[in-house]
């Protein structure tokens, strides 16, 4: 009996052991592991999002550039879907059954219990006919959100567009974005995404096992309401932006206009452009693909991505640096025999001016004068004939003007331009090179490229007599009109204000004196200063360039206009610049010039490789070395021949030489 009595302890021991096993397991799943706790949260918690309205973008006068328009996303919770008339739903929202199946499968894959977007961006009309019948489609509901709408259909490149986030966007945002959200992909929409997008609202809802909402989690302690995006006042002026786009219609080119005092960009035209409304709505994908296929690359943002030799428009810089360095003064005269020759290098000048002084040299765009200044700059005594030191010194001065590097505009995709340092040439030519090797830089050709933005910025610096403000697209952010600090800082270009007089005189003459290259574009009542350029283009006809600012005293606008393949700068670029300047300063164009504006709008200058254009000036250009490919010239280090065509003094002449339309 004693023996059996002890079995009591075995039985009791077993009870204790089993209890400990239970408690041990419980300790693991309740205290040690939080896996089950998290699963419980995901069982019952659903986050419902409310979408904020995206910030509106206004022009500088607070006219609307982009606004929001309501659209309706058809949502589905696959688990709640019961049998229904599929065909009738497809008909209402305008899709076929194949697409229906695909969308439904996609939603199912995303989540059985959470709502997913079934069909995006239904119009108000579709929404109205759908909402009457929605009760017949259990599991489907409509969620409203807003899309972008552009009342004037302008400034597509500037504004950019928004698009549904990609998986990469979601990943990069570390969970901020969720599938179906929209994000700025280019332009201001992208660079000011964080200000524009606002804050999404969240409602944490509890759901029971039948997916019936049971009220908010923790009495809404963790809920937030949606906060609309900030409104942006952009620097753009709708009036001249619109005019600029019309003027560049059917042409390839750019217009950049800057308010010198503030660095605010007044016009930002990239042609060919596109209607920003194409980048909205259900057809966005198709429209985008079509634009991608455009032979003239409508999606390129030419003002910050196009590379052009500055050409003659670089000459004011030669003069200003020369004046600052003291190698010339305003009365220095050089003799122009129609070319500049050093060693075997000959740089042609299109006119034989004999002894020519600074002002006139600028007005007439004398190559010889520019080359002499360049020669003097690089052969200063302090360099001891060390051409690399001399070049680097010069390059540093030029870089101060914003060439050869990005200006840091608040727009994605800006390119640097091209301006090499001495090391590059030392490597390229071994040790034997000098100013004569790179003499074409004096006339803005050769191994130098600038974006239209950089060119306009140089004009702003000249207009300000010695500094520029970083060019930017947004005047102020939000209701408090916040201005970024960096947009108040003056960037000095290393030339004293006093030195600008003669150069500005020359630029004034270029537009306003009978011998100026852009006199055809003179505006009555406005003293515009400027410089034409005719830029060699290795791939076709020369580009027409004009840069300038106005009025001379207290300048309000600095501008760069480039029309590709349009030839002489005075023919297309200068008049376009003058119209925009006039419109901006006077709010309208003088009646006697309006027909010329209309004429300009109608011009078609598009490169069409299989069918070369025939224009009256073609012969001259060809003879002037258009055939030289730029690349070839660089490789052979041949001096460039810059051609500034003889001035067209008679403004009516333009009318006679309408280019052949394609």
């Amino acid at each position: 009996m004693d023996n059996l009595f002890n079995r009591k302890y075995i039985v009791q021991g077993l009870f204790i052991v089993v209890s400990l096993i239970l408690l041990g397991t419980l300790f693991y799943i309740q205290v040690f592991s939080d896996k089950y706790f998290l699963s419980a949260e995901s069982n019952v918690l659903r986050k419902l999002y409310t979408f904020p309205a995206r910030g509106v973008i206004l022009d500088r006068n607070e006219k609307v550039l982009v606004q929001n328009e309501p659209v309706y996303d058809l949502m589905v919770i696959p688990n709640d879907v019961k049998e229904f008339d599929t065909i009738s739903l497809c008909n209402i929202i305008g899709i076929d059954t194949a697409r229906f199946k695909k969308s439904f499968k996609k939603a199912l894959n995303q989540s059985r219990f959470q709502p997913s977007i079934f069909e995006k961006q239904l119009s108000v009309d579709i929404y109205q006919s759908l909402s009457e019948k929605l009760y017949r489609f259990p599991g489907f509901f409509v969620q409203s959100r807003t899309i972008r709408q552009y009342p004037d259909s302008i400034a597509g490149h500037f504004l950019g567009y928004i698009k549904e986030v990609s998986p990469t966007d979601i990943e990069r945002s570390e969970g901020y974005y969720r599938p179906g959200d929209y994000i700025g992909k280019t332009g201001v929409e992208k660079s000011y995404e964080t200000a524009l997008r606002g804050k999404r609202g969240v409602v944490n809802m509890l759901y029971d096992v039948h997916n019936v909402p049971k009220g908010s989690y923790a009495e809404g302690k963790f809920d937030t309401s949606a906060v609309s995006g900030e409104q942006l006042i952009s620097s753009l002026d709708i009036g001249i932006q619109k005019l600029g786009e019309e003027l560049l219609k059917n042409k390839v080119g750019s217009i950049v206009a800057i308010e010198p005092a503030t660095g605010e960009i007044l016009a930002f035209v990239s042609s060919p452009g596109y209607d920003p409304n194409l980048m909205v709505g259900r057809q966005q994908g198709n429209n985008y693909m079509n634009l991608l296929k455009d032979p003239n690359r409508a999606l390129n943002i030419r003002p910050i991505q196009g590379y052009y030799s500055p050409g003659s428009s670089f000459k004011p810089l030669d003069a200003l640096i020369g004046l600052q360095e003291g190698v010339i003064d305003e009365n220095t005269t050089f003799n122009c025999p129609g070319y500049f020759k050093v060693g075997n290098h000959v740089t042609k000048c299109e006119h034989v001016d004999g002894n020519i002084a600074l002002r006139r040299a600028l007005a007439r765009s004398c190559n010889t004068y520019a080359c002499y200044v360049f020669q003097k700059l690089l052969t200063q005594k302090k360099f001891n004939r060390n051409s690399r030191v001399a070049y680097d010194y010069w390059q540093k001065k030029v870089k101060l003007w914003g060439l050869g590097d990005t200006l840091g505009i608040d727009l994605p995709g800006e390119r640097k331009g091209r301006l090499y340092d001495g090391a590059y040439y030392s490597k390229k030519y071994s040790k034997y090179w000098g100013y004569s090797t790179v003499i074409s830089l004096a006339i803005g050709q050769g191994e130098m490229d600038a974006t239209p933005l950089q060119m306009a910025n140089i004009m702003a610096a000249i207009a300000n007599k010695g500094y520029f403000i970083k060019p930017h697209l947004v005047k102020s952010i939000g209701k408090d009109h916040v201005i970024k600090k960096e947009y108040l800082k003056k960037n000095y270009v290393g030339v004293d204000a006093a030195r600008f007089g003669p150069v500005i005189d020359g630029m004034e003459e270029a537009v306003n004196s009978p011998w100026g290259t852009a006199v055809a574009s003179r505006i009555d009542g406005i003293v515009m200063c400027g410089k034409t350029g005719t830029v060699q283009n290795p791939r076709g006809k020369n580009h027409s360039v004009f840069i300038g600012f106005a009025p001379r005293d207290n300048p309000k606008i600095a501008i760069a206009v480039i029309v590709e393949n349009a030839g002489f700068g005075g023919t297309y670029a200068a008049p376009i610049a003058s119209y925009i300047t006039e419109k901006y300063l006077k709010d309208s164009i003088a009646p006697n010039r309006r027909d010329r504006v209309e004429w300009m709008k109608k011009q078609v200058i598009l490169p069409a490789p299989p069918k070369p254009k025939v224009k009256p000036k073609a012969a001259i250009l060809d003879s002037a070395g258009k055939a030289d490919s730029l690349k070839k010239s660089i490789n052979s280090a041949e001096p460039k021949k810059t051609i500034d065509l003889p001035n067209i003094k008679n403004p009516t002449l333009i009318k006679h030489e309408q280019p052949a339309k394609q």
Partner: protein
Amino acid sequence: MSNQQSNRFFFNVDWITILIYIALCTVGYVNIYASVPSHNSADSSLFNFGSNYGKQLIYVIAGLVLGFSILLLDAKFFSVFSPIVYGVTVLLLIIVLIVGRNVGGNQAWISLGGGFRLQPSEFAKFGTALLLARYISSFSPKFRDLKSIAFAALIMGIPLILIMLQPDAGSALVFLAFMFPMYREGLSGYFLLIFLGMIVLFVADFLVPLQILIPIILAIGGIFVYQNKRKQKVMFSAIIVTIVAIAYLFVVRIAYEKILKQHQRTRIELILGLKMDPKGVGYNVIQSKIAIGSGQLTGRGFLQGTQTKYGYVPAQSTDFIFSTIGEEWGFVGCFVVIGLYLFLLLRLINLAERQRSTFSRVYGYCVASILFFHVFINIGMAIGIVPVIGIPLPFISYGGSSLWSFTILLFIFLKLDSNRMGFI
């Protein structure tokens, strides 16, 4: 009843056990109340008798009345009438197979009209316990001869098989609990070891391929034989055991395929981790584990459990009531409840050991063992370490049949205990 008698009555009853009983019933009521999906103001009165918790309150009160009535009976009654009680429960088990109502796949209920129904398998437990106690106390103990073992096994086996036929394997398995009192009364410990070995081999048969398992068994057998090579008898049994063990592996495989039903197979596979099926059979267990796990250390608080409130755990007020405790009261709550059970079980064993009569002692062991099986299997399945076999958590799970049968089971023993000085 004379004054003196009633004094004795109150003095001798083990009030501590009754307090634990009341405590567990209270825990049950509170958690059943919490398990009712979403309390809105209209029906959240504590005494809504249309709801589960309202009914449970009636069951608890009725249970107490029933329990105290049992205490008023003569202690001799149970021993004398045990064959009749056993006979009636077996009869009910047969009747239920013929006219029973099918609830949840098991033909386990007899409808009594007026919305009441009875689950005979619950009452078979104390019927069997009484007869077993009577049988064991009738001969001078020690299970040495095969005949007595076989007879005891028959008492236990008849209801077990009848319940298996319902089919309700879970409730049937509970009858294996009677091995503990038999063990206490002299059944060889080898039976328990063999039983344990069968379970281990059963599990191993699923997890380890035969070509590895058989060599392992042979190796263990070989070592055993080698060590006992001088004791011929031991060596001989070792060889037999080894052979039987290997044969058993094959029997299990065949039985598994041919005898078990698909849902039973699935449950076993889920527990053994051979199958993942979060939407199907495994759903209950996963949701139950989630609910319990989400309680963390101190629980979410009364009526604050989201999984409980929003009905994520199926059968929560009955078989999975422990998940409510786990979610709303956390590890602390689980600790207290398991502690109460353990205290009750240990106390019942101690009470049983202080009985002078074998009948009372055996019956006490039966009560403790059955409660132990229920508690272990029910909590075990709620936390996913035991296959889902739907048996209730004693005194806590919702349901009149189970509460009353446990009450009768327990209070008969309390009556026997209060009368321990007398003779039966």
